[in-house]
């Protein structure tokens, strides 16, 4: 009884703290992700937030959080949107990779990290946060802007590139060789193309299998499938995250909208556990000494992301200011970077953790601020206008 009472009280306090942080983030117009990370980081060290009894529950919740985050990321885009982005913005995706993932990898090596950890770091730096950016563009009323299709296309391409990057990373992190990694990527590539073809041909049947007028049924069926596939993927060494991501991609568009609505609250809850747990697993003493290096990295990679956006928006025939807006929007990093770092830490490359945490803390806050204000900085008439 004593244990149960403690568990409930701890969880209750935890939710209250998360709610307070979420509210604060909302007031400031920011994503709650950096706040969750920071609270984990601050409370983990001095045990201001004791999660002893609730610990195992929160940790299991964090694992489910990753699976739900990736399931919903996979649900975000349809096969048609992906094909369209591939046709129109293939080169933008490539430029984005060359400008961000490659320097990220080199930077990791420069820091003296093992190459597997550098590979993880390159992913952390490469992937913009589609979750934060899509919401930000809507909040700022920029969905109608001409550069926005370019921004969203780059996000889709990054996310789909993750379907190949993640299995490769997981294999390398677990000590596999190049052949095994190639096998992993080939497997994922095969699975993705099979899924896309199946979604094209028989998507409606998958949809019918999953859909039900009751939300409860839809939630249970989706969760069941995602968890089973994630478990199998983890078992064969491809990683649970990859499995649930593929499930998300496989769900047909007609059904994905409803699935997203139903699963979003659940995702928000467990994802909060994930970010918090990630923060808790680090200590402030590891983060503080590397802050200058991370700050430098953030500045450099903000510039390279500006370059990615600049190039992509240019392909849409957008002018100077719009191209800068596109670049600024892409600088925000978030959930995917933390997921990648989580994989590295779990595989024993703990040195990636503090880097990724500090990096995301900086860019999940600075990115949206830059996006918000770049337009007024570049306004040639701003001194003349009364507001």
């Amino acid at each position, binding site marked *: 009884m004593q244990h149960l009472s403690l568990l409930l009280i701890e969880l209750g306090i935890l939710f209250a703290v998360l709610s307070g942080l979420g509210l604060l983030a909302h007031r400031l117009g920011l994503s709650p992700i950096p706040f969750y990370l920071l609270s984990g980081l601050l409370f983990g060290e001095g045990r201001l937030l004791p999660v002893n009894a609730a610990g195992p529950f929160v940790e299991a919740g964090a694992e489910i959080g990753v699976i739900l985050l990736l399931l919903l990321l996979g649900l975000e885009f349809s096969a048609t*949107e992906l094909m*369209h982005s591939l046709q129109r913005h293939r080169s933008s995706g490539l430029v984005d990779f060359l400008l961000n993932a490659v320097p990220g990898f080199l930077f990791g090596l420069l820091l003296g990290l093992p190459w597997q950890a550098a590979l993880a770091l390159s992913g952390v730096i490469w992937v913009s946060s589609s979750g934060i950016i899509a919401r930000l563009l809507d909040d700022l009323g920029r969905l109608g802007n001409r550069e926005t299709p370019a921004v969203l296309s780059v996000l889709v391409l990054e996310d789909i590139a993750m379907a190949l990057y993640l299995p490769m990373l997981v294999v390398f992190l677990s000590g596999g060789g190049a052949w095994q990694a190639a096998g992993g990527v080939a497997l994922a590539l095969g699975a993705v193309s099979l899924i896309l073809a199946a979604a094209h041909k028989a998507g409606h049947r998958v949809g019918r299998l999953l859909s039900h007028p009751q939300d409860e049924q839809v939630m249970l069926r989706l969760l069941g499938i995602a968890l089973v596939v994630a478990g199998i993927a983890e078992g064969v060494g491809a990683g649970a995250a990859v499995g649930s991501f593929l499930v998300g991609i496989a769900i047909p568009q007609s059904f994905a*909208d409803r699935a997203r609505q139903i699963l979003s609250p659940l995702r928000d809850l467990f994802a909060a556990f994930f970010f918090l747990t990630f923060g808790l697993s680090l200590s402030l003493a590891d983060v503080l000494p590397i802050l200058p290096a991370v700050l430098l990295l953030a500045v450099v990679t903000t510039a390279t992301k500006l370059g990615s956006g600049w190039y992509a928006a240019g392909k849409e025939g957008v002018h100077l200011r*719009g191209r800068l807006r596109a670049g600024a929007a892409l600088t925000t990093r978030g959930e995917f970077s933390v997921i990648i770092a989580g994989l590295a830490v779990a595989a024993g490359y703990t040195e990636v953790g503090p880097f990724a945490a500090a990096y995301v803390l900086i860019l999940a806050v600075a990115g949206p601020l830059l996006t918000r204000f770049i337009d007024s900085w570049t306004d040639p008439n701003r001194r003349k206008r009364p507001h």
Partner: protein
Amino acid sequence: METILPGVGIRYDFTANSGVSLALVIDREGGADLFTFDEDDPDRAVSRLQLEPEEASQLAELLGAPRITQRFAQLSKEIPGLETRRITVRPDSPYAGHPLGDTKARTRTGCSIVAVIRGESVITAPTPQQRLLSHDVLIVVGGADGLSAVEELISPPPTG
């Protein structure tokens, strides 16, 4: 011009004859945002008209229904003497709830009922078995006298 907005919906761009550029973003839930652009920065949307899914379909109905009449008006311009009229089936109409064939409109007046507008949907080329409901709007084609006759038939002026 149509552009896919991944994760959001579809965007349509067009320039009105007055020179104003407009963009319409239709999201997956059916909501619509209508944007106009900054003069100094033609890539930046400035004013935004946000419509919920129901509001968007209401607007579509308002814009869409007269277009059907307009197209017929175009037709009647090309054929002298041919006119079109929108006739509403009022709740007190003797044919509300009855099949279209019961009106015997063509036999009695020589006019054709070519479409039925019901809320958001349009039934084109309705069959005689098509049941009419109150508040349906009938698109009728024929001569001026015949049209007035159909109007009287479908929704007779209240007596007493």
